[in-house]
Structure formats: structure tokens, C-alpha cells
């Protein structure tokens, strides 16, 4: 398996500058299916607890530091039918600053829930999530969500939606408007400033949602299947747009998706989750050069191997039946 090769490679890697960066991302990423809490505490965390000693996972030369830490988070939902439903079980994950991390997993495995916990919208039943060492207790403008359902304010125009964040941050109207117009242009919606969301197509709404979140400069973008409802063409275009924006601003991105292609194409790191209860199955580093061009990447055997391997891993878990 590719993943195992990576693991071995990382252990063998010498501590040079470029290789060090790689090794940092590749060390100890393979958490078995059923990690018991004790094991995890014994250092089998998904990402080493002290990532600062490695280089940033991306091409930047700054040392990487953990921006988000998820420590032993579990989430239990009370449902009327089944009494208690364990949606997330003992999730630990560290996300480094500036990293593009995707979460992949079958439907219902708790991807959205995990994202909401990081967003501060849902507080976990046990464990905690931290941003820059501070416990996350409430939503804040340092973490900007982009929801699958767009969640645009229907009573505001495109401009009004994008201006909402800056205005809320106390930016003066004129300035907020200028910034917002620039952002709207950046996401390719110049000329649609005064349209209402209902007058836009799905892809356009998604761009507005992205612009609205970018407008208040969150350090972390939390994107929940943002391109799930789009046609293949729009999806590709938006993926490229997102990568361009990310490469320029180097925000940390936590990106939930169902599409293996998309995850591999976009990410530095892919977190694979398994279902019932939701656990982290594996974390896979994607060692593909940036900036990534879709037409080059599709022909790249390394890229293809990542996709095939990850898909195979999902198939295997399906054959093995539902995990305990």
C-alpha cells in the first residue's frame, strides 16, 4: 500500500531541509482502525504532538506550528429512536498552520460534526478542540465556515452578504464596500453585486459564500462539502479558484469532501474517517508538487496512485463490514 511505503520512507528520511519537511508530515500517520484511548495517549496521535520541530508542510519556509488541535473529542447525540448515538469517538488531530487538510469518509461518519466542533457551533460531549492553544467554546471570526447549503442571507444582495462580516468587525461602510467589491471581483462575480442569492446559480452562490467568509479574514477556513452540489465543470473551476486563493493567502483550510479526487488534488493531508462510531482511520500525506495544475496532475502516476489507494482502502473497509 502506498500509505505504508510513505510511512517507511519517512522514517528513513535524513533530516535535511526539504526532506525534513516531508518527514514531518509523514511520521506516524497511520492510526489503526480501532485506536484505544490508552494507545493514543501513548503517543500514537494522528499528528505528532510537537509539530513545531518540523518544517511547514507546504512550500513556505516558515516553521510549521499547530493552529488547531483536536484532543480526544467524542460526540454523543441523543436521538429519539436509538437512545444514544456515538457520532464521533475519540478523535485526535492536529492541523498545522497554513495546511490544506481534507476529511474523507462515508456519509454519516461525523465529518460535518467534527467541522462544527472546530467552528465552535457544537460543543463536544468530551474532549476539546483548541485554536492556538485556546479552547474553542464559541464561534469566532478567526474560523470561517463555508457550508454545503451556502447559507447566504436571502434578504441581502451579493454585496450585502459579503459586506456583512467586515461591517460586523467594525470596518467603516465605505471601506467594507471597497474590500467586498474587490473580493466579489476576485471570485469572478463582477457585475452581480446587486443580485439577490435567489437570482444566482448554485456555483455562483457557492462563490458568494466563499467571498462572504473570506471577507472577514478568518485564519482558518472550514469548508463542508462546498462543491458537493455542483456540476463537474463548475466544481473544477471552483477548485482551481480555491487553490489560487489559498496559494496566495496561505490560510489554513479544513475541507470536508466525499470525492477522493478532490481531496487528493487539493490537500497536503487527507484524513480518512470510518463510520459508526466516527473514528480517524488513517491520515495520508499527499506529496504532490505545488502549484498544482489539474491537467498535469491527472496524468501524474503519483496522483493516480494516491486516488486508487485511497479508494481501495474504502473498499476494503466496506468488505470487512461495519467497523465495531
Amino acid at each position, binding site marked *: 500500500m502506498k500509505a505504508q511505503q510513505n510511512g517507511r520512507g519517512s522514517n528513513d528520511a535524513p533530516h535535511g531541509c526539504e526532506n525534513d519537511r516531508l518527514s514531518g508530515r509523514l511520521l506516524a500517520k497511520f492510526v489503526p482502525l480501532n485506536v484505544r484511548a490508552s494507545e493514543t495517549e501513548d503517543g500514537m496521535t494522528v499528528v505528532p504532538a510537537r509539530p513545531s520541530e518540523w518544517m511547514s508542510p507546504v512550500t513556505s519556509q516558515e516553521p510549521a506550528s499547530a493552529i488547531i488541535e483536536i484532543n480526544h473529542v467524542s460526540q454523543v447525540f441523543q436521538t*429519539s429512536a436509538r437512545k444514544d448515538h456515538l457520532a464521533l469517538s475519540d478523535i485526535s488531530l492536529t492541523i498545522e498552520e497554513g495546511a490544506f487538510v481534507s476529511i474523507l469518509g462515508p456519509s454519516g461518519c461525523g465529518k460535518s460534526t467534527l467541522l462544527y466542533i472546530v467552528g465552535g*457551533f*457544537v*460543543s463536544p460531549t468530551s474532549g476539546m478542540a483548541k485554536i492556538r492553544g485556546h479552547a474553542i467554546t464559541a464561534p469566532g471570526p478567526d474560523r470561517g465556515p463555508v457550508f454545503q447549503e451556502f447559507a447566504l442571507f436571502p434578504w441581502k444582495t451579493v454585496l450585502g452578504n459579503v459586506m456583512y462580516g467586515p461591517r460586523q468587525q467594525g470596518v467603516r461602510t465605505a471601506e467594507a464596500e471597497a474590500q467586498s467589491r474587490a473580493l466579489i471581483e476576485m471570485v469572478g462575480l463582477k457585475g452581480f453585486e446587486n443580485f439577490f442569492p435567489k437570482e444566482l446559480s448554485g456555483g455562483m452562490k457557492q462563490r458568494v459564500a466563499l467571498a462572504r467568509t473570506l471577507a472577514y479574514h478568518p485564519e482558518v477556513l472550514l469548508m463542508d462539502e462546498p462543491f458537493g452540489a455542483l456540476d463537474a465543470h463548475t466544481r473544477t473551476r471552483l477548485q482551481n479558484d480555491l487553490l489560487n486563493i489559498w496559494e496566495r493567502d496561505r490560510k489554513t483550510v479544513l475541507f470536508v469532501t466525499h470525492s477522493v479526487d478532490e481531496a487528493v488534488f487539493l490537500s497536503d493531508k487527507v484524513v480518512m474517517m470510518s463510520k459508526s462510531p466516527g473514528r480517524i482511520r488513517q491520515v495520508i500525506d499527499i506529496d504532490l508538487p505545488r502549484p498544482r495544475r489539474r491537467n498535469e496532475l491527472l496524468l501524474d502516476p503519483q496522483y493516480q496512485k494516491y486516488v486508487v489507494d485511497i479508494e481501495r482502502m474504502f473498499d476494503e473497509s466496506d468488505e470487512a463490514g461495519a467497523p465495531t
Partner: protein
Amino acid sequence: MMMSPAVLTRRAAPVLACIGLLAVWQVASLALKNDSFPTAVEAVRAIPDILGDKESLTNILASLRRMAIGFGVAVLVSIPLGLLMGRSRAIAAFFNPLLMVIYPVPKAALMPIIMLWLGVGDVTKTLVIFLGVSLPVIYHSFEGAKAVEEKMLWSGAAMGLSPAQRLVRIVLPAALPEILTGCRTGLVLALITMITSEMIARQSGAGNILFNALDMGQYDTVFAMIIIVGAMGICLDAIFERVRARLVRWSEPQFDMPLSFS
């Protein structure tokens, strides 16, 4: 939600609310010391006098009978009309403006005119109640039928249902929650129309007792009558709610969703 203490509190809450409102009344009347504002206790004490009086009781029962007939006939006529309007643009376009003209007219205000033609009998009062109930029921049936998903009807047609069968077998059940909302509004309106029409005609019935007492300065009776009429409204609504819950168990409870901020 399924726990019995929760159900208990929910059952008990309206009763507590009633007691609370009566207590507020009691305190207010004691504080105001107004001759024309009896205390809650005095008003409640006057209730047996009214219900014990044979004439009053027959009057009240006659009111209820008129209301039941007016309501029943209105529902039977209005639901089919509303459903037809909801499924046919032409029928909707035909009736909508007329209904919009009639809607804001207080039906009880038609009493004096209808009285000119039909006299002050049961027919007039029942007719007025009928008119009062019809409009909300038509309106809600219309809205409900309009919102029925086209695909459901298509699959019905594919199964070989005739248009009339589709109306009865698909549109009616699908629109039922909305129709029942209309019926509930209609029920309250029936009570309002009943009282006001009797207040205006001043012949018999609950509204008449209420205003005669007012004219004669029997304030205890006035407030006792208010309690009786109010109790009628609350009981009818509670009964209706029971029936509604039975009929549309599959539909989501409309007003039971808490708003979550976290």
C-alpha cells in the same frame, strides 16, 4: 420529550396558566377597587347561577347548536372548493377576487341586512356563522392544495387514478395539515361570529346574555359569562387539537420546535 414528567408539565402548563391569569385578575380587581370590575372569585361564583338557570342554559346550548351546524356545513363546502381552487388555475382565478372582496367584511355585520330578509331566526344566525367559517377554511385548503408536490400527482396519474380520485386520494391527505389549520381558525371565528351576531341581534344566545347583563349592570354575570365563553373556546380548541393530532400524526408538530443558538 418521551419522558412522563415532561408530558405532565406540558399537560399541566395550560392549567397553571389559567390559574395564573385568574390570580392576576383577582389581584388587579382588588387593587383597582372598581365597582364594575368584580374579583375573579365573585365571577366564578356567579357561574353556577347562569348554568343553573334553565333559560340561560337552553340559550347557550342553542348557540352551540347553531355554531356546530354553521361550522359543519362550512367545512363540508369549503374544503372541496379550496382544493379545486388549489389544483386549477382557472378556478382559482375565478374565485380569488370575489373572496378577497368578501374576506375583510365582518360577517356578523351582515346580520342586520340578512335579518331584513330572513328574520331573526336560527337560519340567519347559522348563515352568518357559515360565512364566517368558510373563508379561512377555503383559504387554507387552497394554500394546502397548491403546495402539493406535482410529482405525487404524476405518480398518482401513472397509477391510473382519475382526476377526481387524485383530488380525494392524494391532494386531500397531503393538504390535510394545512386544511386543519384553516378549520382551527374557522372554529375560533365561528365562536366570535356566534357571540357578535347574538350581541347584534339581541334575541337569545350567549352573546345576548352577556350584553343584557352589561346593560343591566350585573357585572358578576358579565364576567362569569366571559369565563364561560372563554372556557368554551379553550375546550373546543383542545378537542380539535386532539382530533388534529390523530389525523395528521405523520406531519411534524408545527409549534414544537425549539430554536437552538448553539
